[in-house]
């Protein structure tokens, strides 16, 4: 529209009739061309997601190799059982802990409520695998807790639970992932306000009955959403289970690839995992559709149920214990370890790990935000079915476990590499060797597919604030094109872009399996260093990189809390 007007105005000077017609054609051709350009972006990214998925899923039907046969006979059953119990345990645990803490901090009043309501989010800053190795270092047989107790009680501590167990992994993951449920459920309870409880009371329900009959069912989509997030993190997790030697699909993929050197078997394992993940995604999307009906109008005045006496104090105790175990204890232990090895470990190599991590994170953040912006604009320009479907596919990458993505992207890249070097050899008689493999390209593509959704959502919701009437108002005031983009869109989108970039930045920094499996040889990051040290039980040596990650993870959380307080 805009282009054709401009062209028409310019051309009226010379030869009105023909030129208008010409410019009309040329501009409409251009419009079609740009519309194809805009549509191509989401389709391109969707393809980028579909390639690894397709690669992995197709290996589901590939002929079973020897390694696969061996795996089926020996470990597959165990992997399935392990994954199943882990999923069940973490879902139940996060739901129970997350919902109860959310309810108490949102609706009740108890000593320290204001502090706990934000502090309980802090564990989000600690990667689950960091948590895992701290827990092992502290509570394992040779750890300070058991050693201390043994000397103090003069006993063998046969009753002390084995930390390296299924229950141990579940407890660690629940403490690491409950904030997802907490955050969403709390939001739901806050928006419900006390009003709905009052409505239930006016219809003859007591407040406990009201909670179970009303508040809980009303918050169900959010609670389910939070549990689904925790569950996907659990399925995608590599570092935690690796530390605990608790075999799941992600560690099995790694072992098949780098231990048995069978990319095919790794891909077949990945295909089983992806089927499980897809089931979870299906459930998740259904619960999400349930969130639509619920209005999110914050009730004007939140007045809370005032608790006192033992009730108030036991809730405060629950919150304190959670916060202590999930944040204070691991951070203090990390601090102690890091301090003890600082003089030795803070060296050239550490700085190199740090530099690699920062570089990767920054590039990935810019890349994902750039693509997310392009996608958001193409949705705005062409909100049709094709674009919608492409966007939905593109943002599903966040659900794909990093180990799966690593395999699914490495295989086609290796294939492409072979084709390219074959071509180079034939055409130019030139032995190129590997072109793409072992470069950062593979890694960045994997990051892009995995974290696009993370950057897409904040930018998309910022874009929703730019209503069509804002565009029209800008145009009415004489701003079009770049000027409108710079003076109207950019200032409104700025916050969303910043949020997106910082989230991706931290996520990439913490990311372990993709980095581990697709990095150029010897190109280590903080996360890789943690993996290598913890797999040898060197907790202290993993502490300094871990502290760095925790600090990085704290920054966006503190930022968002300050944002929320405003």
């Amino acid at each position, binding site marked *: 529209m805009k282009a054709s007007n401009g062209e028409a105005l310019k051309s009226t000077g010379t030869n009105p009739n023909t030129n208008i017609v010409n410019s009309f054609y040329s501009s409409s051709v251009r419009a079609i061309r740009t519309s194809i350009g805009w549509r191509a972006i989401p389709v391109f990214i969707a393809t980028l997601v579909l390639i690894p998925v397709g690669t992995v899923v197709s290996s589901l039907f590939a002929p079973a190799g020897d390694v696969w046969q061996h795996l089926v006979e020996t470990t597959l059953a165990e992997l399935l059982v392990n994954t199943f119990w882990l999923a069940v345990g973490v879902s139940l645990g996060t739901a129970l802990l997350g919902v109860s803490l959310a309810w108490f901090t949102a609706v009740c009043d108890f000593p320290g409520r204001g502090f706990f309501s934000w502090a309980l989010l802090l564990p989000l800053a600690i990667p689950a695998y960091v948590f895992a190795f701290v827990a092992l270092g502290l509570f394992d047989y040779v750890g300070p807790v058991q050693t201390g107790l043994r000397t103090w009680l003069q006993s063998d501590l046969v009753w002390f639970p084995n930390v390296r167990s299924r229950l141990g992994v579940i407890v660690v993951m629940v403490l690491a992932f409950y904030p997802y449920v907490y955050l969403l459920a709390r939001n739901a309870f806050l928006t419900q306000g006390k009003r709905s409880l009052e409505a239930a009371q006016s219809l*003859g329900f007591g407040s406990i*009955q009201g909670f179970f009959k009303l508040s809980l069912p*009303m918050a169900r989509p959010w609670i389910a959403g939070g549990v689904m997030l925790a569950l996907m993190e659990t399925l995608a997790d590599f570092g935690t289970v690796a530390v605990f030697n608790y075999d799941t699909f992600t560690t099995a993929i790694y072992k098949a690839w780098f231990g048995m050197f069978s990319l095919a078997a790794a891909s077949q394992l990945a295909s089983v995992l992806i089927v499980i993940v897809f089931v979870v995604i299906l459930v998740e999307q259904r619960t999400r559709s349930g969130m639509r009906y619920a209005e999110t109008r914050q009730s004007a005045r939140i007045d809370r149920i005032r608790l006192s006496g033992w009730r108030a104090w036991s809730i405060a105790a629950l919150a304190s214990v959670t916060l202590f175990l999930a944040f204070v204890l691991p951070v203090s232990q990390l601090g102690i370890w890091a301090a003890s090895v600082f003089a030795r470990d803070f060296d050239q190599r550490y700085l190199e790990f740090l530099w690699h991590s920062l570089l990767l994170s920054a590039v990935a953040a810019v890349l994902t935000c750039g693509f997310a912006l392009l996608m958001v604009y193409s949705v705005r320009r062409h909100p049709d079915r094709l674009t919608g479907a492409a966007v939905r596919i593109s943002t599903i990458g966040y659900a794909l476990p990093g180990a799966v993505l690593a395999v699914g992207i490495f295989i086609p890249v290796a294939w492409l590499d072979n084709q390219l070097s074959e071509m180079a050899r034939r055409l130019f008689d030139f032995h190129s060797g590997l072109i793409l493999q072992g470069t950062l390209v593979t890694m960045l593509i994997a990051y892009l597919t995995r974290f696009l959704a993370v950057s897409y959502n904040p930018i998309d919701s910022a874009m929703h604030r730019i209503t069509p009437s804002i565009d029209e108002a800008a145009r009415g005031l004489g701003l079009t094109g770049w000027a409108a983009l710079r003076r109207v869109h950019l200032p409104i989108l700025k916050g969303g872009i910043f949020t997106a970039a910082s989230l991706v930045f931290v996520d990439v920094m913490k990311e372990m399996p993709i980095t581990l499996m697709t990095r150029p040889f010897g190109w280590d990051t903080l996360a890789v260093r943690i993996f290598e040290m913890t797999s040898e039980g060197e907790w202290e040596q993993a502490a300094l990189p871990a502290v760095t990650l925790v600090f990085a993870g704290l920054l966006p959380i503190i930022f968002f809390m300050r944002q929320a307080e405003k």
Partner: protein
Amino acid sequence: MNTLLELRYIRHAYGQQTVVEDLSFTLEKGAIGCLLGPSGCGKTTVLRSIIGFEPISAGEILLNGVVISNASFCLPPEQRHVGMVFQDYALFPHLTVRGNVGFGLHRVGKVERAARITDMLDTVGLTHDAEKYPHQLSGGQQQRVALARALAPRPDLLLLDEPFSNLDVTLRARLSLEVRHILKSQNATAILVTHDQEEAFAIADQIGVMHQGQIQQWDTAYNLYHKPANRFVADFIGEGVFVPGKMLDPDHVEIELGILQGEVAHHCCPACRQCRSGGSVDVLIRPDDIVHDDGSPIRAAVMHKAFRGADILYTLRLPGGSTALSLVPSHHNHPIGEKIGIRLEADHVVAFSRQV
């Protein structure tokens, strides 16, 4: 007629700030009462005290002759059998209309429950929307669901907190009549809280005008308008201006436009001689007390006019300089500045001793 609800000298305070003080009224079974007042006057607090969301710090509240609230006791809301329609309706978004209406019917059998839901949906005219979710309904329909939900368990008393404030003006007028009809057909006793007097007049049998945490007057709409108990009520209800006047004797007041005769509803202490004869008073003149009459010798200049369809509300300057309002059929269209003939036509007098 027997008394259903009685409030005796209740007091409510949020911390240091007293919101309601010494407030009393009674409501008969089957009557519709209304608390009317500007925002912040404490009317919603009274409502929340009656249902038990707010404890009171003095006085007592009796329902069916039983104390349900006093300074040391507050029966939980769910045991009071008092229903409420919330300002924002507070419909349950995860339940259908049927689910919402049936929500409070948890103590009755399945068959009876279904019958009651059908009955209520029929009463509020939402039979065909039973399976819809609240977000699929218009504002007026949501309002009716809220009403049906609150009425379904047959509460002893129904409270309505600004029930029409989220609706547009035309819908408000229609729905308020409809709600009165529904309440009467269900034989419900109800208290409405609003700041809109037309709404109060349309629904309520008895209205309490509230100001600064106290009921200024508890009366019928007619009496509030024509026999206001004090200056606040006179000012708040309807339109009108005060003009200076002088008491001639207990039945006659002289103002600029002539002598008003009739029962003088002046409000001062009964023993005050000065008010009864010779005292200076302010006389409330309503727009309908002054009639346009071309033949009248009294001429007043048009200062301002507001067209209202059937009538025009003229603001007039009287010869002596004071201001008065007059409601005139709208075909008497006079330009601003013109002097028009007016005549006093009031059959009762409202006067307050002169404010110094």
